[in-house]
């Protein structure tokens, strides 16, 4: 099993632990990731707020590179915004030949063109539908027994394109957590917005959203909130004292592949738990290297 890997900008800087843990967890599952050479930014959620054509040409460039350098491989993107931007190019060009023509014309300055067919996949999609839950469970050496995990999906991997899960009541991450031996929680805000980049541009609007999510996870009895998006992760882990000042201790927030790493017997440092900004005291006490 092999994918063209698009890490995206966040995973190269503030979310390095998401990149490293994704690579390590997938390697353990026998999945090969070939990083798209010379990839560039997908435009995040900013490009479409400035230029529609750029919002398609920026992700389009990466799909064109993948098609040329790694032909035939599905493109795997762990970040929600990257995934949606890349997927949008796949979807829009499927039904709008004019969109494809415009993207190709823009890309022609770099002697690039979109490949004939593109298939963009999210990490959860690959885990559940390609790797499969039994293969994940098989690699578990230290099951996350008794760990109450609140899966947090965010928005853009579910909407507007519901490719691999229910856009209102998603369950793929709960299935993976279960395969790791954890106890996934059914809680009400698992697919509700964290405010995304409003945390940078309109902080007073985003803080209450983060506060609601943290309180709902606590009320459900969560030991950890599991994420699959660098912006969700940052918003939920870095603003806890501002968004939920009455919260007793940090509520642990971790990337799903970091939890996979722990269940696969990896040392917390191997999946870079040192980078996490909200880890409750004692959370890692049962982890292999510290046991």
């Amino acid at each position: 099993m092999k994918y063209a890997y698009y890490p995206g900008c966040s995973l190269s800087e503030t979310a390095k632990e998401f990149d490293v843990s994704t690579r390590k967890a997938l390697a353990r599952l026998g999945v090969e990731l070939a990083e798209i050479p010379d990839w560039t930014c997908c435009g995040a959620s900013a490009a479409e707020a400035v230029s529609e054509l750029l919002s398609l040409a920026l992700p389009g460039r990466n799909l064109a590179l993948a098609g040329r350098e790694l032909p035939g491989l599905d493109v795997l993107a762990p970040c929600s915004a990257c995934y949606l931007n890349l997927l949008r190019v796949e979807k829009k060009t499927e039904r709008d030949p004019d969109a494809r023509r415009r993207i190709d014309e823009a890309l022609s300055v770099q002697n690039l063109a979109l490949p004939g067919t593109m298939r963009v996949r999210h990490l959860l999609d690959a885990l559940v539908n390609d790797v499969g839950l039994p293969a994940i469970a098989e690699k578990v050496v230290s099951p996350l027994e008794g760990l109450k995990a609140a899966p947090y999906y965010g928005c853009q991997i579910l909407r507007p394109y519901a490719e691999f899960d229910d856009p209102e009541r998603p369950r793929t991450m709960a299935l993976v957590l279960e395969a790791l031996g954890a106890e996934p929680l059914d809680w009400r805000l698992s697919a509700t917005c964290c405010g995304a980049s409003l945390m940078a541009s309109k902080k007073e609007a985003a803080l209450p959203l983060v506060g609601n999510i943290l309180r709902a996870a606590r009320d459900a009895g969560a030991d950890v909130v599991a994420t699959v998006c660098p912006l969700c992760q940052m918003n939920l882990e870095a603003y806890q004292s501002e968004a939920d000042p009455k919260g007793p201790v940090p509520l642990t927030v971790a990337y799903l592949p970091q939890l996979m790493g722990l269940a696969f017997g990896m040392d917390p440092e191997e999946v870079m738990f040192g980078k996490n900004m909200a880890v409750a005291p004692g959370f890692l006490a049962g982890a292999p290297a510290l046991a």
Partner: protein
Amino acid sequence: MATSVKNPAPQDEASRNLKAIREMVAACMQCGTCTASCPNYPSMDLAPRRLWRLAVMGLTEDIFASRTFLLCSNCYACTLRCPRGLPLTEAMAALKRMAAARETKWGGRKTQFYRTFLDNVRRWGRVQETDMMMRYFLDMKDPLLPLRYTPLGFRLLRKGKIGPPHSAQSGRLAGLFEKVKEMEARP
């Protein structure tokens, strides 16, 4: 004449853009599912339902006096639930684009974050978050704004999550940005 970032959207382009948005929401039946689904509604001065009514009525200035569309965080809850199946999140993005074009021409900082972000992409090829936020603070010309992020900045620094820009892809996208600008300036 070609438009550019410095010399952007003439008025006819603004009305053309609003016409496109009107068409996107023309079938709106004012049910309010969008408002009820919006996580950011409590921070908005105008409910999304009312914003779409203004768009249908072509009340451009009322729309741009509001900050509702700038509070859209692209969660697509309204798009998912709209009983008419209207592309509401895309319409919000189109309003952001119109506002960005107006501000580029006449000044204003409501869309500054998006413009600074994209300029960072143009310069570096890959977003350099540290450099981007520094420039955003400078662009906003609000001396108090950085203070709201200073504690976080130190924590990120301690965690080794931020640092000087990596320049391997620097300038890689300049040609693409130029080409897109040229294409968008066509009548």
